[in-house]
């Protein structure tokens, strides 16, 4: 399935765009998606603390995606 990954804050700045499209196999996890994002955006290699969201709720890296969710990856938050 084709998956659109939304990027925010410094990750968006590093990629030079707000989202990436990836082809993902059945059973792909957020961790797998993040590895593909890093392959597409070498500036994000070695990021220690990526955070994930599925359908606008925080999600763990072992979460399996179906391709129908809104998927986002971003650095640790700093609002307030």
């Amino acid at each position, binding site marked *: 399935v084709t998956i659109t990954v*939304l990027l*925010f*804050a*410094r990750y968006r*700045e*590093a990629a030079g765009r707000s989202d990436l499209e990836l082809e993902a196999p059945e059973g792909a996890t957020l961790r797998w998606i993040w590895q593909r994002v890093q392959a597409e955006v070498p500036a994000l290699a070695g990021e220690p*603390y990526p*955070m994930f*969201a599925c359908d*606008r*709720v*925080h999600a763990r890296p072992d979460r399996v995606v179906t391709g129908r969710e809104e998927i*986002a990856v*971003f*650095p*640790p*938050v*700093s*609002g*307030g």
Partner: protein
Amino acid sequence: VTSVTLHRLVDGPLDLQEAIRAVAGPDRGAIATFSGTARDHHGGRRVVRLEYHAYTAMAEESFQAIIHEASERFGTPHIAILHRTGVVPIGEASVIIAVAAPHRREALAACAFAIDRLKEIAPIWKKELYADGAAWIEGSETRPSR
């Protein structure tokens, strides 16, 4: 209990009175508010202004979740959360929280809880602008901006 709440990202100055008006009521004897304001220094560096970036849809849903959680925990359904995005000049508010309750104790506790939760979960990022550069703040880390 009817829950009247206000939660919004605002691309411009925040209005503390708006937050207070949204939560106030005749059966509430306490209104606790928190304003987070843009500070002119960080780690010995002079900050000339801040910029806040948000994952808008998720941030607004997270405000709703925080209000729900605080309301359940402290019995205070009257809560407002306003967060500014874009440029925030030094001294101006980046976030405002107001909680009204019958008595001060639960209003103060819910207000403190709400700002702590917001800092933990709301997908919002602060960028500090210096005279000679910029950096993203990520949790307790400072990461250079390109």
